[in-house]
């Protein structure tokens, strides 16, 4: 892109209301991977997160593997990370099958687009994609209730080559689009979608379509096929501007509104009754909603004035958007120091994803 063109696009972005914080996507550069630390994941028939804020949903199990920087290809200029997926077999896509890579934008952040009103504004999606297959691929924009969707296509022209794509969508003046802490906008890239969930490209439809019927390439239909993506940006307006790089720390804090990993190190628990002691853990970042807690690994506790640690079971007792009350079932001491145990150090996973 020439400098003059770049300045002109930024001028358009200014007219559309934003020169900074243009990108409504969080972790669009695929930099943050709190859950897996860059390790490969074989996807199950469920919603599975790899890089933060980027889940895959599949109705079939073990047909795809995914990983941050899978395949170790060179990312596009200006990027250091990407998400990669590989088809594990030549799978048949039945009419009711769904395999999608997607991103959900919180309603508070998408409200500025005014969708569902007469003042609905266009939005422009841009991204870099690289695939071992060529042809027309599908995707879609969907609302929270999955009763409004807009299928789109993009074309991969050359195999195993990074290509920059932009898609501009007229704002939806109909339907209900959440403007609170729920799912404001869901954006999907199809890796294999059955006909039940495909719609005509380039038009709003009052149903749940996750791909375009014209997007004929299903990654999962070819064993060993690869698909990689990075530099995803969604901005209000009809113009794609250069990717807005944010600092690592800024991106990590944004991700933690939706998912955070923490632990306890000599955390004080106070005795409540003969069986229970309670402690409180605060989240580094206020969560979108009260998070689901998963407690992994091993924990141990030192009773007040006690030299040796005992192994304890740790429970979540109550969660809210800022903190959680945790419980251990131990005996006679007035207070305990709880910390990570062995052989697997305990972790607390707080999940407030959309």
């Amino acid at each position, binding site marked *: 892109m020439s400098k003059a063109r770049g300045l002109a696009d930024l001028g358009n972005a200014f007219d559309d209301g934003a020169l900074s914080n243009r990108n409504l996507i969080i972790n669009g550069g695929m930099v943050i991977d709190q859950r897996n630390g860059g390790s490969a994941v074989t996807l199950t028939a*469920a*919603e599975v997160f790899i890089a933060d804020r980027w889940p895959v949903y599949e109705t079939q199990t073990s047909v795809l593997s995914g990983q941050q920087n899978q395949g170790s290809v060179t990312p596009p200029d200006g990027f250091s990370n990407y998400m990669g997926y590989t088809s594990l077999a030549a799978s048949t896509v039945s009419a009711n099958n769904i395999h999608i890579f997607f991103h959900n934008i919180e309603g508070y952040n998408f409200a500025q687009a005014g969708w569902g009103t007469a003042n609905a504004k266009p939005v422009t999606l841009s991204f870099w994609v690289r695939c071992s297959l060529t042809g027309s691929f599908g995707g879609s924009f969907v609302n929270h209730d999955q009763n409004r969707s807009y299928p789109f296509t993009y074309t991969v022209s050359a195999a195993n080559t990074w290509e920059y794509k932009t898609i501009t969508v007229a704002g939806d003046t109909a339907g209900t689009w959440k403007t609170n802490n729920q799912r404001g906008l869901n954006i999907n890239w199809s890796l294999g979608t059955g006909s039940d969930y495909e719609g005509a490209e380039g038009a709003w439809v009052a149903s749940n379509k996750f791909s375009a019927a014209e997007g004929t390439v299903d990654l999962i239909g070819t064993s060993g096929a690869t698909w990689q993506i990075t530099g995803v940006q969604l901005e209000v307006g009809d113009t794609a501007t250069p990717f807005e790089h944010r600092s690592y720390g800024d991106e990590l804090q944004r991700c933690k509104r939706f998912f955070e990993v923490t632990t306890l190190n000599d955390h004080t628990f106070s005795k409540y009754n003969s069986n229970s002691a309670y402690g409180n853990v605060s989240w580094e970042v206020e969560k979108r*909603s*009260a998070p689901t807690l998963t407690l992994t690994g091993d924990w141990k506790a030192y009773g007040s004035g006690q030299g040796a640690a005992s192994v304890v079971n740790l429970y979540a007792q*109550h969660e809210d958007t800022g903190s959680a009350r945790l419980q251990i079932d131990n005996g006679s001491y007035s207070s305990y120091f709880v910390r990570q145990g062995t052989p697997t150090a305990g972790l607390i996973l707080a999940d407030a994803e*959309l």
Partner: protein
Amino acid sequence: MDNMNITSAQYTTDMEGNNASIKATIDGTEMSVPLDPANRHYAEILRQVEAGELTIAEAD
């Protein structure tokens, strides 16, 4: 896209004996799910209860 495999669900109570959260096994992992309608796991539990696919057991 919230088609979760929920194989068990049981309320847990707070210090006053009120239901505070749900201990659930979701996609093979035990989780503590808050009673927050904006939480995607709780929303899916409510959907499956409404559909007659799941029962939440009372707290011990």
